[in-house]
């Protein structure tokens, strides 16, 4: 007769000792679904290439477009290298100042990604905290936070960003660049946090009634600790998906603001700035100055969005 303890079998044929986190991830359904989805893998590849170029622009870019000394006005407005008049030196052509577009793309992508990621992180911080608070505490706090969400959602996000940006500039008229960045990041994140708050609030309300939370209360754990240590890990799943998709939205918002001239400072052009600059030359036939930054923006946004879509389906237990 077996002793009362029974050795439960893990789903794969690994020995009974608990596998470490990496092992678990590689064996899990998420990784498997990734390997089986050509779209996800392609999107991941494109995103990886873009991010790599952006991160290591210093090493990868053939020229430094912001080094004024290295610019040659003679080389301005050159078409891409495969067209007539183009030069091998400047693969994708140059803009009106002689800056190599390929390099400008990489540096610009770096700025765009930085602003995008930073604003998403800030949004997440604000949104998840408020959502947790609203869902867990309930009552008047919940009602108050949700009304703020409703108000924020009734404003178009660009207008909110413009407003905050404008106010920031008015308060600090001679601000140096890093302050301008911070205002921009703040503006974008204040338009995006509502999504996180609502999602997290819904999940928190579900988890709050589960018995493991009640068990923690019976043990005497404080509400704050329950929120942080018990509920938070269980509501982060949808937040991850949302964040991935929001990165694309944030980058596009930043590009829009920069296109309108109220985004990043002109000394650190992002993709949006490049598009704006190039727009002026579109009708004189020098299409490449605006099209390449535009294409890069679309590629980044699209690949990140596709990854987010895949992640949402992979994490959805019902679709597995």
């Amino acid at each position, binding site marked *: *007769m077996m*002793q009362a303890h*029974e050795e439960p*079998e893990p*789903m794969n044929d690994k020995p009974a000792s608990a596998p470490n986190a990496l092992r678990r991830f590689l064996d899990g359904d998420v990784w*498997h679904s990734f390997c089986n989805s050509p779209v996800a893998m392609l999107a991941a590849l494109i995103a990886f290439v873009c991010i790599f170029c952006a991160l290591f622009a210093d090493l990868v870019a053939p020229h430094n477009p912001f080094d004024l000394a290295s610019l040659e006005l003679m080389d301005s407005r050159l078409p891409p290298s495969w067209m007539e008049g183009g030069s091998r030196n400047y693969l994708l052509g140059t803009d009106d100042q002689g800056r190599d577009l390929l390099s400008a793309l990489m540096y610009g992508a770096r700025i765009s990604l930085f602003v995008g990621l930073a604003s998403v992180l800030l949004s997440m911080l604000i949104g998840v905290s408020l959502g947790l608070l609203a869902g867990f505490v309930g009552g008047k706090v919940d009602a108050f936070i949700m009304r703020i969400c409703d108000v924020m959602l009734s404003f178009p996000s660009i207008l909110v960003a413009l407003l905050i940006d404008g106010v920031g500039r008015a308060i600090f008229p001679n601000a140096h660049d890093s302050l301008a960045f911070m205002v921009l990041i703040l503006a974008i994140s204040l338009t995006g946090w509502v999504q996180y708050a609502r999602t997290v609030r819904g999940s928190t309300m579900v988890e709050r009634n589960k018995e493991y939370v009640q068990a923690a209360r019976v043990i005497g754990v404080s509400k704050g600790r329950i929120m942080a240590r018990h509920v938070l890990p269980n509501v982060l799943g949808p937040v991850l998906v949302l964040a991935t998709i929001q990165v694309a939205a944030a980058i596009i918002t930043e590009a829009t603001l920069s296109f309108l001239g109220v985004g990043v400072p002109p000394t650190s052009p992002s993709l949006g700035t490049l598009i704006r600059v190039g727009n002026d030359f579109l009708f004189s036939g020098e299409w490449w100055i605006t099209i390449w930054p535009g294409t890069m923006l679309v590629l980044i946004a699209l690949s990140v969005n596709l990854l987010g879509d895949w992640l949402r389906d992979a994490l959805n237990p019902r679709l597995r």
Partner: protein
Amino acid sequence: MTTSLLEVRNLRVEFPTRHGNLLALDDISFEIAPGEILGVVGESGAGKSLTGAAIIGLLDPPGRIAAGEILLEGRRIDNLPYEQMRLIRGRQIGAIFQDPLTSLNPLYTVGRQLIETITTHLPLNQTQARKRAIELLEQTGIPAAAARIDQFPHQFSGGMRQRVVIALALAGNPKLIVADEPTTALDVSIQAQIIALLKSICKEQGAAVMLITHDMGVIAETCDRVAVLYAGRVAEIGPVHSVIHRPAHPYTVGLMGAIPALDQEVERLLQIDGAMPRLNSIPSGCAFNPRCSQAFDRCRSERPELTSAGGTTAACWLHANQPGQEP
């Protein structure tokens, strides 16, 4: 051989997953005679709901019938195309599921759902169908049926809803009803009412019932015969009285001993150590052998067939050597 209404022969149901083929039902065979109530009992994971789903033809993909046959009145129904099976479902086989809340469409009145089922399967016009629907509701004990027929499911209580579901199942005059845990979600007092109703109305209409449940008490009250499932196989099958009072298979013995009884008191309940094996790690030989106190070598290597063992038929090597082995 008596003509059986439903015959299941060597049924195998598989779930192909990326970890391999999971065999959920392994060589299940049993019969139901016309008008008989067969109980299918087992613990979670034994495969009893899957058996019901396979018979009705509602196996969730990727699950599929890998082998075996299901015959209704001598004709195979497991390999029918969707359209033909749809006609059988409701007309020949009725179904009752566990949760009355989700079995009824909340957006349609009860009458509309009943009439739709009736007109699909029987050659009646709308007026006749409505009359029959009211009759059915009255038969299942719903008071003021003529008025309540136009109400929505949420206006009925849990027990009443389950009565409506029974009425729906019987609407097409089926010969077989598959009831999957019909009383589990209900209170004890309502449970008793529904069991009594099921029994009486099926005897009245001459319908056979396959009652799937984990509750042995319900089986004792309602069924004529009972099949005990373990890890996707039939462990024991026989008349209800014999299986409960003189079980032959050690699992059934353990199961009976583990159930606390109302009329006697024991200091410690009989406990079968361990748990039912998961689908991907079913032991070789007899699936119950690691937990069986009477297992010997043959049990670990060879899977036993169903053989006669006293008043019942059990798949156990302990009884295989009895004289008169053939089932």
